[in-house]
């Protein structure tokens, strides 16, 4: 059997020594996992190596680890794959050890075991991760259209392993960020048609300075998640619902920034950055809205940068700083961009890649995996704008226009 070298980051607090690296060589079938390698070390070489694991089948979520810098599950990473990963690090070619570390963004308890309480569980509890339905529960089960639950199945696939939290680049800079796992969990309830607190949940997460607008959109959690939850996609859904459907004017300027950006492209086709800065911070100065204290702070905060920009000629000239002095698209191109807007704003289609698959079976490397297969049907959601009230969940109450779904069971004659 081939030999592999595991370079493990060790930490044994009772020795009062700092963390250190230790290399172990294991004999392992290439199809077995990095976790199998670690367990072989523990069983036959060093009984003090501490690893947390249980199911060895990517179900329990216990063995979150960083392997060659990538947050993942040790049981779901084949050791031969990990070796390939180690060999392609920039600068070296071949023969590198597989680097195994505890998860990031979390305190280390011992060796590969991290404390997930303060960085994960507390944040999950913070988003009220249970259903808050209106009124008394029904006599039997809640009856909802099946397609209305499809969209939340992706976030329901979460096994709470913390790999996304470990990989989160925003949390590295802001440890208070609610984070990808908890926000994906929040969408699981925001998107649930039985929940009655949709708007309240969204309001809470939009207003929190460490909430949905603290995500930097870096896709790190999407690559880390072993279950295809794509936490960042769920955060973007939360933003769409908060801003577009519930008009929540947050103190973080998330909605203002998004609206200003979208409007500028409608008017000019390409981005006028000066106008964006002005409008996302200080719509209120020239418009009818009162600027938030955050907006005023933001505008003042951006001034030194702007002045420096003029001095070096970065902003071309003073003209570039005057919002509105920006080239337009040639000819009738802008009219066509406006037509695109009116076509899309009449209604809103959302294509959930998690539940859709191209009907033409053309294997394409760029194509996303299709976890539920074609049996589920189309993944399009028709998102009609919800104008008031928090009890209705946008989009979820509407039938998808393309899905071929069984009719709801008849309440009386269904059995």
């Amino acid at each position: 059997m081939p030999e592999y070298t595991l370079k493990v980051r060790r930490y044994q607090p009772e020795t009062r020594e700092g963390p250190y690296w230790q290399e172990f060589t294991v004999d392992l079938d290439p199809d077995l996992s990095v976790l199998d390698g670690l367990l072989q070390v523990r069983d036959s070489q060093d009984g003090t190596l501490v690893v947390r694991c249980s199911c060895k089948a990517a179900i329990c979520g216990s063995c979150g680890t960083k392997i060659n810098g990538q947050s993942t599950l040790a049981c779901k990473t084949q050791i031969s794959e990990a070796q390939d990963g180690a060999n392609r690090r920039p600068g070296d070619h071949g023969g590198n050890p597989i680097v195994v570390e505890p998860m990031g963004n979390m305190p280390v308890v011992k060796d590969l075991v991290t404390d997930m309480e303060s960085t994960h569980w507390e944040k999950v509890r913070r988003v009220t991760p249970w259903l808050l339905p209106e009124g008394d529960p029904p006599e039997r089960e809640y009856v909802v259209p099946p397609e209305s639950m499809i969209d939340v199945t992706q976030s329901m696939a979460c096994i709470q392993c913390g790999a996304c939290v470990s990989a989160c680049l925003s949390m590295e800079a802001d440890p208070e960020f609610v984070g990808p796992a908890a926000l994906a969990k929040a969408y699981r309830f925001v998107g649930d048609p039985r929940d009655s607190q949709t708007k309240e949940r969204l309001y809470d997460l939009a207003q929190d300075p460490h909430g949905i607008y603290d995500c930097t959109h870096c896709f790190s959690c999407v690559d880390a998640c072993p279950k295809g939850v794509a936490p960042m996609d769920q955060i973007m859904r939360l933003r769409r619902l908060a801003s577009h459907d519930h008009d929540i004017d947050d103190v973080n300027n998330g909605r203002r920034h998004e609206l200003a950006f979208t409007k500028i492209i409608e008017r000019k086709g390409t981005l006028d950055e000066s106008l964006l800065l002005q409008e996302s911070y200080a719509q209120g100065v020239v418009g009818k809205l009162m600027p938030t204290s955050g907006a005023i702070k933001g505008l003042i905060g951006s001034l030194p940068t702007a002045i420096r920009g003029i001095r070096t000629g970065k902003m071309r000239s003073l003209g570039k700083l005057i919002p509105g002095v920006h080239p337009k698209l040639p000819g009738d191109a802008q009219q066509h961009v406006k037509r695109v807007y009116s076509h899309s704003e009449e209604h809103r289609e959302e294509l959930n890649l998690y539940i859709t698959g191209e009907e033409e079976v053309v294997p394409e490397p760029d194509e996303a995996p299709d976890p539920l297969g074609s049996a589920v049907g189309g993944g399009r959601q028709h998102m009609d704008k919800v104008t008031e009230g928090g009890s209705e969940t946008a989009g979820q109450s509407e039938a998808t226009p393309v899905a071929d779904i069984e009719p709801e069971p008849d309440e009386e004659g269904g059995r």
Partner: protein
Amino acid sequence: MSDLKLAYWPGCVSRGFTPELHGSMALVADRLGIELLELDRANCCGAGVIAEHNQELADTLNARTFALAQSTGLAMMNICSTCQGAQSECQQRLDADSAYRAHINDALADEGLEYTKAKDGWTNKNLLWVLVEDYGLDRLKEKVTRPLTELRVGPFYGCYVIRPKHRIGYEEHPDRDLYLESVIETLGGQPVEYDGARKCCGFPVITMNRDTSLRQAGTHIADALDAGADCLVTPCPLCHLNLDMQQPEAAKVTGRDLGLAVLHLPQLVALALGFEPKELGMGKHIASTEWVESRLAGGVPA
């Protein structure tokens, strides 16, 4: 005669806050013999922000740009990681469902445009990918007249050309997250390994959480400095805004004395092709590029 001809989407920022990028790209294309047909009617990619507002709108806007490129019969090139990411995301949705695609194309019909999935193997690639996969590093090496010997360059990719892997072509091109190092070596420079090379610059939240944003930028710059970098290079103008334009602010937030030049990818290539820093608008940067210039001139010992 040029054998590489591409429909070129320069993006908004390269013609706005970082005009030196657009200018440098034109010089590089000319010197390398890459013919670029600029898509002057195309629109903003939405940078992920429009998709936050309305996914269908973002998809339609980008379908329009793709259709404009396809109507030229040429593959498309961008010079912005963020354009690449936002456009790849929309393209993935457009390619996933023919009914959805037909609905989107409906909005483009008035202009006589249509986006066709996989039309003649049509692709949309960032300059970095074009250099490695289509132009070729051997050919690039032949064009180098001033090797960047001794220049220690920290690569800064920008999230959207490296993540998410399932969307942006890693099955076909598994080494896309090592291309910057390869290009730096091809140009005669030394790639610097540091922690932030594949992390987020923080730009997307600069107007929403300034502290998070600048802490990210400042940390990566400091890490690169600690690793001995003379400069950073990035294929993304939005990363450039946070790493260069905001660098003095990032220094305040992180409490570090920074001062590291950040070059656009075409600027770094152009330096090796013999262009002068002034022609490349390097004086327009906020973080001074003087150190890089003196290193190139052999004036500062390693």
